[in-house]
């Protein structure tokens, strides 16, 4: 029986009992309670002070002021001679608790490379982090409304980015090769993915690009997915496609844009980008321009 049919055959009664079973965990949550909101605000304030102290310590180190740097980094009570202008105290922290702190941490990390812990990678070997577009540079008017972007781990079990994707290996398998997948979020929505696949030779990388292009050109919904219709159209940009998925069950159609491109700086590497158009307003030309921009940021490396 197709999986979709089994999905539909699940009864309301079964659904209600499963929901009740999982809902029972709420008893443990209520029993444990949640901390007072002021505790949470204080935690935010302490983090901000640590961030500022870190910046100050860095500056101090440059100037050779090692003693000040030590004090600024240390949350313990100061042992320095009294000089309230340079010591962060618990009292200072309390005083700032009542105000929303400035947005320090994210602004200071713009264009920083992706953090290794945010990547889903093969077990054996990991692509160079410079092959990935820095998470902050994924922000765009078209796909994020100008909102900032950040990387994070998503729900990933294997390398597949889209239906028909020929790069389909499960994590930890003997044939997984060298890959890394980065998910990009904005405003709580996952909208972007970059998969970097590093092949053994330049020729193998070219062949990989050809395989992905061929798969996209001929892409149709798999026979068992009888509830969806795929419409794949090439964009003006070579290697870029629009994938529109329509659902028989009434789910709103989805539009993804996919782009596969070989790197120039590391020609054994191939990046495949996937952008989800949650706004449903992106035009093909806008998507192609955005994919080309991301591609340029990646392929120089």
């Amino acid at each position: 029986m197709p999986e979709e049919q089994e999905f539909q055959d699940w009864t309301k009664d079964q659904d209600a009992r499963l929901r009740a079973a999982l809902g029972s965990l709420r008893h443990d949550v209520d029993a444990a309670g949640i901390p007072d909101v002021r505790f949470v605000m204080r935690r935010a304030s302490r983090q901000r002070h640590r961030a500022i102290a870190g910046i100050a310590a860095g500056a101090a180190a440059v100037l050779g002021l090692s003693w000040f740097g030590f004090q600024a980094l240390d949350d313990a009570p100061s042992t320095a001679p009294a000089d309230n202008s340079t010591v962060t105290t618990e009292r200072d922290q309390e005083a700032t608790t009542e105000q929303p702190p400035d947005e320090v941490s994210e602004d200071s990390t713009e264009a920083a490379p992706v953090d290794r812990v945010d990547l889903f990678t093969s077990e054996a070997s990991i692509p160079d982090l410079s092959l990935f577009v820095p998470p902050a540079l994924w922000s765009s008017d078209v796909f994020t409304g100008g909102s900032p972007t950040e990387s994070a781990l998503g729900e990933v079990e294997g390398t597949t980015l889209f239906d028909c994707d020929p790069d389909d290996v499960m994590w930890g398998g003997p044939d997984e090769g060298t890959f890394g997948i980065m998910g990009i979020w904005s405003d709580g929505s996952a909208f972007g993915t970059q998969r970097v696949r590093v092949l053994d030779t330049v020729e193998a990388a070219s062949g990989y690009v050809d395989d992905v292009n061929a798969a996209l050109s001929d892409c149709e919904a798999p026979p068992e997915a009888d509830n969806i219709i795929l419409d794949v159209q090439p964009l003006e940009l070579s290697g870029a496609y629009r994938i529109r998925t329509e659902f028989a069950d009434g789910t709103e159609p989805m539009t993804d844009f996919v782009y596969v491109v070989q790197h120039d700086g590391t020609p054994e590497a191939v990046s495949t980008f996937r952008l989800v158009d949650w706004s449903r307003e992106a035009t093909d030309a806008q998507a192609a321009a955005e994919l080309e921009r991301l591609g340029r940021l990646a392929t120089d490396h």
Partner: protein
Amino acid sequence: MSTAAAQQDFEEFYRATAPRVVHLVYATTGDMTIAQDSTQEAFARAWQRWATISEYDEPLAWVRTVARRVAISAWRREQARDRAYVRHGAVAPTDGPGLDRVAVLAALQTLSEPIRESVALHYIADMPVEQIARETGAAVGTVKSHLHRGRRQLAEALEIKENDHA
């Protein structure tokens, strides 16, 4: 928005939504300590950026995503310990769930991480398939597949059968 108004706004948001976030992360990780800590961390980060996040259509989606992300990182660090508990036939909740909830937590631990996350988001956060895809980065078809497999495994583990109200 004035500082006092922002603080009141955040407090109301926190009180209304924090237990739901803890519940979601608890189901995802099976660890109450991680659930509580990651939820606090997510709300702390939200407060740091409240001027921006309060303008979002769904500030809760942002907090939920950050909390799950922080929790999964912490949970992976604890995996060795959890696996040891699972090998001995039990889950490893820090604060001790009620006896009837042990079975639910144990059943959840039999699911793979992405499946458990989809199930928790659907049944605890009441999110439809498309929204789960939006918050997790998985394709809609993948989420449906996760839910299908998760339901089947949980139904077997919890002995939920059609027309069986026992």
